[in-house]
């Protein structure tokens, strides 16, 4: 039911109603500067949990990465910066020494020390804590806290990406003393961190309110209060922005951007998604076990057309399994080709006999999934593929992911959690990973070696070879690397983060004052 409504809503908004209004629209917020002391943001869903170790959902991490700090911090420019750790270095092959920031206090006044850091990291993989991020830092063997401002982390094998892992989910530092005294439920109800905002109140499905933390080590944010509203439908979310009720909105679809741009007080800001939108492939099921068939399917997709028509140019065509912006992305590699003639040839060579190939699409699980499915189905039909589009619901998708029971291809939006192929293709396509439908001995060997090597030159070569093998066997059909767009008031100076963190610290968010 929600599905049809969402589509119709988009239609209604895009149709005449919007058109008529855009000319006559004179938003009350024409100002390009402001005296506001309150930042209001609207996202597509409500916060579910504040405890950072119990959720990885984007609606939650937008908040939790600002209530809490990590030891390291990935800024919107994609680079790693100091967080609660001021410096770190590798000692030998498997020991990382972190020097911690002194004089930092939690929102409740407790001082931050290495005991908190040790407790937080150990909590993520402690089987008794039952967290939702139990695998995020599983490369760690043990942690020592020789003094209040030093942390020594020993990994099971060499782990070149440990500082990157600590910057993402699972790595948020929670207060040991407070959490132990109030318990998990108490902590989630009244979370305390070291981040730039402190918890004030939360009305479910309405809004969360957070106060700027005056004592923040990175400087008090450029506002006194942050209100996070949940506005699930796209059209009302945009209306709230145009009317000046909110300062920033998330999840702005490309076909709605004209309205935001046309309004004199608002603008669009986007970040190239740290990941890809792919069709996952069940390579175990004929005819998709035949690499020639998969190559034909890939060659038959006119990705440029999809980017231009469905995404209004807000995306780029991938050139392999590594997202642009990640370590070891090869800019010299050409974008995935569109060649329907060659596609027909390879289909013929593969011995394909018109077996049904299913696209199991969700609706709005990833942006534009259904529209892209229909476009791709038409392109595949053109080269002689017997394709069938089936719509599945989110929970069915979750079940099929779990059971690895997809019938053909399906939409997936692999996120690069570490800014490195290890946190994307190897995490998802590796042996036992959630998208393990295809194995290749050489590919597995390279992936494993690259994970545990601290030699970046060796890793670069390994990922280059893995990309070659990938492009032959295509365990994913990469389709687009889209921009994730936000609508914002012109008086807000802010840069989005490619990995869905929502950075509101002083270095990244400022109100333009008169």
């Amino acid at each position, binding site marked *: 039911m*929600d599905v049809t*409504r969402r589509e*119709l*809503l988009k239609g*209604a*908004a895009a149709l005449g*109603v*919007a058109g008529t*209004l855009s000319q*006559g*629209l004179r*938003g*009350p917020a024409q100002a390009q500067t402001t005296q506001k002391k309150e930042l209001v943001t609207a996202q597509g869903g*409500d916060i*579910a*949990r504040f405890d950072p170790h119990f959720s*990885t959902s984007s609606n939650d991490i937008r908040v939790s990465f600002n209530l809490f700090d990590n030891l390291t911090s990935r800024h919107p420019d994609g680079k790693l910066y100091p967080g609660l750790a001021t410096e770190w270095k590798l000692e030998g092959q498997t020991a990382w020494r972190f020097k911690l920031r002194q004089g930092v206090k939690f929102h409740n006044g407790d001082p931050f020390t290495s005991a908190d850091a040790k407790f937080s990291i150990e909590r993520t993989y402690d089987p008794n804590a039952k967290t*939702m991020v139990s*695998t995020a830092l599983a490369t760690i063997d043990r942690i020592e806290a020789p003094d209040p401002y030093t942390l020594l982390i020993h990994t099971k094998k060499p782990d070149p990406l440990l500082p990157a892992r600590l910057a993402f989910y699972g790595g948020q530092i929670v207060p040991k003393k407070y959490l132990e005294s109030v318990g998990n*439920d108490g902590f*989630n109800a009244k979370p305390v961190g070291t981040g730039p905002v402190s918890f004030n109140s939360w*009305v*479910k*499905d*309405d*809004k969360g309110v957070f106060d700027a933390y005056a004592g923040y080590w990175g400087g008090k944010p450029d506002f006194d209060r942050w209100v996070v*509203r*949940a*506005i*699930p*439908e796209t*059209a*009302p979310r945009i*209306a*709230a922005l*145009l*009317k000046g*009720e909110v300062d920033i909105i998330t999840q702005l679809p490309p076909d709605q951007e004209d309205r935001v741009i046309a309004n004199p007080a608002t603008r669009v800001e986007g970040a190239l998604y740290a990941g890809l939108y792919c069709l996952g492939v069940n390579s175990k099921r004929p005819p998709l076990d035949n690499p020639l068939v998969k190559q034909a399917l890939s060659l038959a997709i006119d990705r440029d057309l999809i980017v231009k028509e469905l995404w209004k140019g807000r995306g780029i065509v991938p050139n392999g399994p590594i997202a642009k912006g990640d370590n070891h992305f090869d800019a010299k590699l050409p974008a995935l080709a569109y060649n329907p003639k060659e596609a027909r040839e390879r289909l013929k060579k593969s011995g394909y006999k018109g077996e049904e190939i299913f696209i199991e699409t969700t609706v709005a699980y990833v942006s534009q999934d259904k529209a892209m499915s229909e476009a791709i189905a038409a392109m595949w039909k053109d080269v002689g593929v017997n394709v069938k589009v089936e719509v599945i619901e*989110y*929970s*069915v998708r*979750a*079940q099929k*992911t*779990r059971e690895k029971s997809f019938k053909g291809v399906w939409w997936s939006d692999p996120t690069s959690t570490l800014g490195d192929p290890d946190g994307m293709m190897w995490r998802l396509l590796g042996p*036992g*990973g*959630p998208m393990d439908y295809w194995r290749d001995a050489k590919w597995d060997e390279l992936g494993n070696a690259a994970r545990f090597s601290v030699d970046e030159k060796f890793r670069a070569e390994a990922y280059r070879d893995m990309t070659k093998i990938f492009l032959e066997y295509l365990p994913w059909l990469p389709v687009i690397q889209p921009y994730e767009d936000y609508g914002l008031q012109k008086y807000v100076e802010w840069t989005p983060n490619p990995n869905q963190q929502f950075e509101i610290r002083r270095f990244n968010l400022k109100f333009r004052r008169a």
Partner: protein
Amino acid sequence: MSGLLPFLAQRLFRALIALWLVSTVVFVVMRLSGDPVPLLLPPDAPTSEMERVRRELGLDRPLPVQYAVFLSNTLRLDFGRSLHFREPAFTVVRGYIAATLELGLTAFFLAAVVAVPIGLLSAMKRNSVLDHAAMGVALIGQAAPTFFLGILFILLLSLKADLFPTSGRGGWQHLVLPALTLGAFTMASIARLTRSAVLEVLRADYIRTARAKGLGEAIVVGKHTLKNASIPILTITALQFGTLLGGAVVTETVFSWPGIGRLAVQSIYNRDYPVVQCTVFLAAVMFIAINFAVDLLYGALDPRARAN
């Protein structure tokens, strides 16, 4: 008075049966609709973890056992812990009820206050311009889907005319657009029904008699017409309250209103059995309570209802 007690007892008994049926249907349907555990855990969670969570939530027990536990807990208003929010389902739903009641009752009140006089006026001035205009608007109100009206109101009355906020819950200004949206269908139905009920009564012999004996129009309408027309109006109005609860699902989503309609939809997506069960149960209680109240009003308005 002697007929009142058995009448009440019988209605109460029916209400309880209805509640039992509703909760059983929800229990069965939710279990048919899929496993919540894959939605709760990351996709790479091992099978042992899945089994642990399933055991913890009691989902590994046979269905009849789950059902028995569910029934006995429901009697104590214990719907279990929300799988998504990880707190008692009743506590979660309780936090949303006030918002839905505020919206639903405002819409309901708005609908009744506006629709009854319009329907009455339409009937009295039958086939006039006023009648045609009012019934035309009512037709649109009945035909237009809630989400369409909602978006239209946001665009016209909020963005263009700058009269009300676009969404969210706050002061009375926040209430106007969602209440109008939610009440539109009800308002239209009540207006149309009032018109036809009044027209029917106006044709009755006792109205001709009243007029013949020289009673003033105010008394004819106020005392004889409205009172007799009120029974069908009351019936449809009570039934409309159910429509309001259903319509709340869409209206609350469009206007980001933190009510139980939106909670129910989200909880269905999350396969959050306890919250869905609790929401539907409480919605059913509200619906049945309203119907019960209407039954009592019938008794007061029409002695024949008591006798039957």
